[in-house]
């Protein structure tokens, strides 16, 4: 059990050159044959299929949910994706659309993507999503407050949202593209985990750069240190910018070699991505048949 909180201003320092070098080392692993196929199946099963647009409609969300459950029915034995990620107003429709397939519904909340709203509005936003049936809530931290050094505010806000989530699992988006340094990514990760995050997540997808291997590595190492300190497993979700199978496999290698096999399931690792699934499907079919099919054979939703 956690007895006292650490001083977040003393979070471990990160050396950028070293992190980038280590991250590139994972990309040197050669993933072939059955390990490639197994890895790709796992990737599919870890995807949070996402639509977060101002122009989202019931129709769009329903179609995406069908895709989530039926990735490529001409190829039997495929898993579903892990979850569908939508705005709070779309939770109910999405929940109904995935039915009892086991696919979870994740909802962004807390004035996503900027997070620039008062705390009570954010709490209401969260409660609304959960009441509509969200299994998971993806919140954003208050980056402005974080940069201003108000770590207690950021901490308390995450804790309050966690409370509002009830049974829903909480993913905390750090928006690493706005944090500026790995030192700050590490500090924000520590704050989020100690405040009650079930997952930490890199990005909203609205800011560049989004997920990168180095920034994900920094967060995975924070998760490992937290696990050692408290015995609690925290999940990781890189989001935005991962659209190719090969890159997704590099991420899996990184998870395996930093956190071990226990994290290699969608309970502990997710990809926030919308176009990754089709590239993975294309690779899986290629592994099976030996030839690449044209992109038109894979449904666009």
């Amino acid at each position, binding site marked *: 059990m956690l007895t006292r909180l650490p001083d977040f201003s003393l979070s*471990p*320092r*990160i*050396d950028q*050159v*070293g*992190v980038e*070098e*280590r991250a590139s080392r994972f990309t*040197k*692993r*050669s*993933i*072939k*044959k*059955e*390990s*490639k196929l*197994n*890895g790709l*199946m*796992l990737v599919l*099963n870890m995807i949070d299929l996402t639509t977060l647009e101002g122009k989202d409609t019931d129709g769009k969300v329903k179609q995406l949910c069908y895709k989530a*459950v039926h990735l490529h029915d001409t190829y039997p034995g*495929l*898993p*579903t994706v*892990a979850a569908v990620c939508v705005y709070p107003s779309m939770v109910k429709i999405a*929940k109904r659309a995935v039915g*009892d*397939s*086991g*696919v*979870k519904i994740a909802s962004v909340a807390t004035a996503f993507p900027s997070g620039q709203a008062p705390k009570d509005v954010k709490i209401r936003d969260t409660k609304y999503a959960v009441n509509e*049936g969200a*299994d998971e809530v993806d919140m954003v931290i208050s980056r402005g407050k974080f940069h201003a050094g108000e770590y207690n505010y950021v901490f308390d806000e995450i804790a309050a949202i966690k409370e509002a989530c009830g*049974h*829903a*699992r909480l993913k905390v988006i750090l928006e690493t593209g706005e944090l500026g340094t790995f030192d700050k990514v590490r500090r924000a990760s520590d704050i989020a985990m100690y405040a009650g995050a079930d997952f930490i997540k890199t990005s909203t997808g609205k800011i560049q750069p989004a997920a990168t291997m180095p920034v994900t590595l920094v967060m995975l*190492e924070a998760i*490992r240190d937290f696990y*050692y300190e408290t015995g609690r497993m925290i999940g990781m979700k890189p989001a935005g910018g991962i659209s190719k199978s090969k890159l997704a496999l590099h991420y*899996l290698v990184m998870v*395996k*070699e*930093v956190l071990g*096999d226990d994290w*290699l*399931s*969608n*309970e502990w690792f997710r990809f926030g991505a919308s176009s990754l699934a089709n590239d993975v499907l294309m690779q899986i079919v290629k592994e099976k048949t030996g030839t690449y099919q044209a992109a038109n054979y894979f449904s666009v939703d």
Partner: protein
Amino acid sequence: MPKTITKKKNNTIKLKFDTSWQYAPAPESKSAATINKQYDLFINDEWVKPAGGKYFDTINPANEEKLSEIAEANAADVDKAVNAARKAYEKVWKRMPAKERAKYIFRIARMIQEKARELAIIESLDGGKPIRESRDFDVPTAANHFFYYAGWADKLEYAFPNRTTEPLGVAGQIIPWNFPLLMAAWKIAPAIATGNTVVLKPAETTSLTALKLAEIIQESGLPPGVVNIVTGAGATGAAIVNHPDINKIAFTGSTDVGKIIQRAIAGTDKKVTLELGGKAANIIFEDAPLDQAVEGVVNGIYFNQGHVCCAGSRLYVQESVAKKVIRKLQDRLESLIVGDPLDKNTDIGAINSKQQLETIHKYIRIGKEEGAEMYESSCPLPGKGYWCRPTLFTNVAQSNRIAQEEIFGPVLSILTFRTDDEVIEKANNSPYGLSAGVWTDKGSKIFNMTKRMRAGVVWANTFNKFDPSSPFGGYKESGFGREGGLHGLLPYLNLIN
């Protein structure tokens, strides 16, 4: 937890291999490399049978299978090679305009790049190092050394302003088995760029890439006799060292042999540079970026199975973070893949020779007897060949032999310290002084430490980084003279007026 889910559709897949996701073998193809059944000596641009008619086997340390037979040069062969080098020096090479010399060296560099894949495969087959390292480090860095010194060949007046330079003559060069091709490049490139000619002897367990380099040199059209490569063991090396017509000895290898060489050439006018052993201190302060430091420590000691003279084999950790660092190191050890050097996923390959494996085992035994606590990776080892798990010792004292003597294997000794002064004293408390590492977030501390460390190379927040433009060499019993960079030109030149 989610409330509404009653029936699951294949939603949590389990992986094969007992829930763990393993990497399938990804071996580099041996067929991309050509190895002859037998290699002769490369003298005066020709392949010459050894005078004694003797050949010795070279084996693959990963499976103990014979790869080829290598000629054993005796004193008569060495004499022939030195004569060829002398003739080439007097008649051709020293008279050739420097920019013409450079053209040949640039050509050799490019040909190394063209044959990079083959060279990497042979380096891994013959020496046991993982293909990832020979492909990404040894071969490209070797090519870079030729490029770099080719560039200096016609610019020596800028390297030594207001001085006139003159080459030394014939250089006898003896190189070790840990980086066979790279060490050949370190030795040959500056020597011939400055106008010397060369007789080079590779180590007897790893002659193949040097002989491949001889093929490249032959193809490049380098004038006959400028580079001669004679193979053999200690006796061949002694014949080079003792040859009266050699002007310069460049040796990389053990401190013991370095001392023998120094004795042998005492009283002669031969110049010498020695790059010898090391027991580098790698120092982690409590404010260091620990995860990156751990990675640096792993690269520092387990790179090339620890067969690195500048390996960070003594780790000093500030006591307040020692537990954390050791735990992270142990975790990292578990993710290192030990096995087939030709597999692209291998992190740690085979120990270079049976003899070296015995040395490493001897030190592991000593470490245990001295009361240090041993931890080794739980990875399985192949049945045939020479293998050693990545190993670390905790609870090591300065007076332990595993903290004083060079093991030259994947074995790390971990010591703790409290203050800056204490760690500097301990780090410098070694007959060696080749390299050191400092890990801290504080810039001023880096400069303070690096100034007071008695080591030729000090890395800060990184380790085992090499570049042709950066000089390398030791203090104390780690040798003298510098290789690489501007400094690497001087050991091959006389500065006159």
